[in-house]
């Protein structure tokens, strides 16, 4: 015999290394990662850049950028420091993005997993509920929820999560439907593994990659939704958020455009970074796609 079947091929590098190698092939994704890291850094260093309350009066209202070095990016209508707002806004935006995404994914995973794994009437019922949620325009539902709950940041975040779970639910369901027929699931059942363990320990880890990729989409959408709420004056004014800054900066858009444009750019870049990040994750987690 020329080769013995039992000889092991050389060990592969750890998964993270493989992941990173695949990820870095996508240059746009690297850019996305860079922006993302920047935003995270901004969120982390907000307290260092400005140890005071970002909502306080920091200078003469509507000081243009680069004219007074105590407020380098200028001040808004109420004399609040734009730079400090952008840094603290990164915190709020990331927080909204991450928490709303977690909420959406958690609901979506549970509903999608149950529907996809059990099928039958469970699937029917859960999918009717999903359809019902999907039929109501999500922004209208969001407005209704905010009307009910009020504009506290916690509630806004929760509401954004609640209106965003249907897509991940459908995705998880589809993944589960295809994975539940895989032989490794049969193998686990054949070993006597319980349904719960099969759902969460066998199938879910395999269903995660597309969900992780989609999470970046929800994060992006969450930030956009929050800014749209703020535009309609339904944001939480107790925190400096980019959405609030644009919402208020809009009033002075013509005379002091930087008030809206600076946080606007922050939103565009952050959402862009999430999207690019998502594409990179897709390439790295989904190596089926053609390599460069």
């Amino acid at each position: 015999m020329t080769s013995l079947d039992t000889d092991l091929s050389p060990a592969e590098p750890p998964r993270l290394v493989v992941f990173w190698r695949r990820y870095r092939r996508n240059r746009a994704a690297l850019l996305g990662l860079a922006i993302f890291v920047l935003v995270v850094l901004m969120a982390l260093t907000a307290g260092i850049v400005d140890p005071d309350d970002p909502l306080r009066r920091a200078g003469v209202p509507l000081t243009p950028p680069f004219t007074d070095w105590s407020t380098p990016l200028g001040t808004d209508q109420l004399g609040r420091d734009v730079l400090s707002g952008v840094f603290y806004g990164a915190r709020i935006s990331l927080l909204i993005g991450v928490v709303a995404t977690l909420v959406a994914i958690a609901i979506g995973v549970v509903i999608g997993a149950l529907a996809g794994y059990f099928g039958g009437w469970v699937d029917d019922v859960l999918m009717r509920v999903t359809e019902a949620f999907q039929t109501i325009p999500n922004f209208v539902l969001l407005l209704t929820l905010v009307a009910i709950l009020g504009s506290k940041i916690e509630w806004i975040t929760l509401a954004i999560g609640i209106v965003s779970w249907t897509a991940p639910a459908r995705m998880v369901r589809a993944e589960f439907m295809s994975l539940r027929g895989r032989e490794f699931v049969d193998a686990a059942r054949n070993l006597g593994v319980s349904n719960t363990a099969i759902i969460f320990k066998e199938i879910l880890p395999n269903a995660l990659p597309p969900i992780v990729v989609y999470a970046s989409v929800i994060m992006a959408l969450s930030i956009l939704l929050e800014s749209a709420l703020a535009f309609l004056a339904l944001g939480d004014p107790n925190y400096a958020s980019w959405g609030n800054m644009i919402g208020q900066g809009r009033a002075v858009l013509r005379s002091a455009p930087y008030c809206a444009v600076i946080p606007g750019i922050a939103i565009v870049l952050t959402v862009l970074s999430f999207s690019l990040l998502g594409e990179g994750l897709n390439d790295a987690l989904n190596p089926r796609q053609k390599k460069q």
Partner: protein
Amino acid sequence: MTDTPPILQIRDLKIALPKGADRPFALEGLDLTINPGEIVCLVGESGSGKSLCAGAIMRLLPEPHVHVAGGAIRFMGDELLAKTETEMRGIRGEDIAMIFQEPMTALNPQKTVGWQLDEVLRLHTKMNKAERKARAIEMLTRVHIPDPASAYNAYPHQISGGQRQRVMIAQALSLSPKLIIADEPTTALDVTTQLQILKLIRELQEQEGAGVLFITHDFGVVAEIADKVAVLCRGEMVEQGPAKEVLNNPQHAYTRALIGAVPALTPPPVKPVTKAPVVLKGTGLKKTFAARGGLLSGKRKAVTAVKDLTFQLHQGETLGVVGESGSGKTTVSRIVTRLLECDAGKVEMDGKDLLACSPAELRAMRKHIQMVFQDPMASLNPRKRVVDLIAQGPIVHGVDPDKARADARRLLELVELSPAAANRFPHEFSGGQRQRIGIARALALEPKVIVADEPVSALDVSVQAQVLKLLADLRDRLNLSLLFVTHDLRVAAQLCDRIIVMQKGEIVEHGLTAEIFASPQHPYTRNLLSSIPGRDWTPPSFRPDAA
């Protein structure tokens, strides 16, 4: 053969692989000549580079990642590598035609058969619409499609796999190409269909006098069809010659190993297992699938997969369940392991009906009946380490996790894998290794019965032989009882003491393997046996250590 110049001459062909591949060249120094009217088989295991050779001739390699790095491909004396893309487009389909492995995916699902046949003619001829249609129907007639006119209007999903392959052949031959490249054209087909298609290719090739490059991994097929054989091993051609020579008197060690691995059609000696106690008994099993109709339609067609099946499995015995696709053999394996709920019947083990168990009882019972799956990649959770995969069963059944993992490492040795494998993930293994892991997992629970569902059908022939040998060894050493589901009669002949032949959900014949192979009673069994490719060729036997 004839004095006419060769149709295809390949000289010193080199195909480069992208950086980071397991070797720099997929093919290195391939020489091959095909004369008119000649069928040349290019044989090799997966990864040998045989399909890339076809891509190189057609100039359809996934460039620039994979590209021709040197050599010459002369077609009718012309250098193909020097042709422009436009010139190549004129040659493809007209002078060189290709038949692919998967008839389902190789046809555009959104276009009718007629449209796809028509496309070749439209691309390469000036025929008008009526002429093209006439020609297409003529071709469909020539490939023996029952109702050519209605097949012309059908979509690919509306005709059977065998017919789809006939359509592919019709499409390939409709412009009487000088060279036909057939890339594993029968691998996806049932054995009876396979034989028909092979005959068809032979027949048409004789009529047209074209040269055929036939790519396959199956020496049975080679024996059936080849004039000449070239054997590839990891990109290198190790042996070439007339079919009879190579098949019966292979020179190179690799060829010998490959041929030696082809299971002979000689059943094992009869064991006195029928005296042993029955460990597993199925009675009156029935399963009907309420298959959904179209995606959008609500109507459901019921498909009977298994009707009234009864069998007994004795201690230490291997019972083969043999049949073509759709015979219900796989359903049987899922019913007895209760991965599928059965409509009626009993599966008894130690006097207990598995099918009547409560979920809790069932979970306990599962320990005794384990399964080895068909697809070694799909059956191992890609996100778990090997040691956890193997230890999972015992842990679920209450064994201390540390002990279970230690046992798992021992089991790896039992299936002849290095203990270093324990901490790796499934994708780091070859197919055969994965199947060994699957076997180790099944063994971890020390079951009484192992149900093996086509455990070797996804493996290369040499690996197949090794895994089969392992299974046989383990069975004998551990006194296991094996329910072995397979479509491959050669494999059944190697391993099974008794076999059940199934057709459309029913047992048409059962008995000792040797007896059935010697004198099949049922016409279907006879048909099956007579369709085994290369049944008239007995692979010369080499001692495994001959090399």
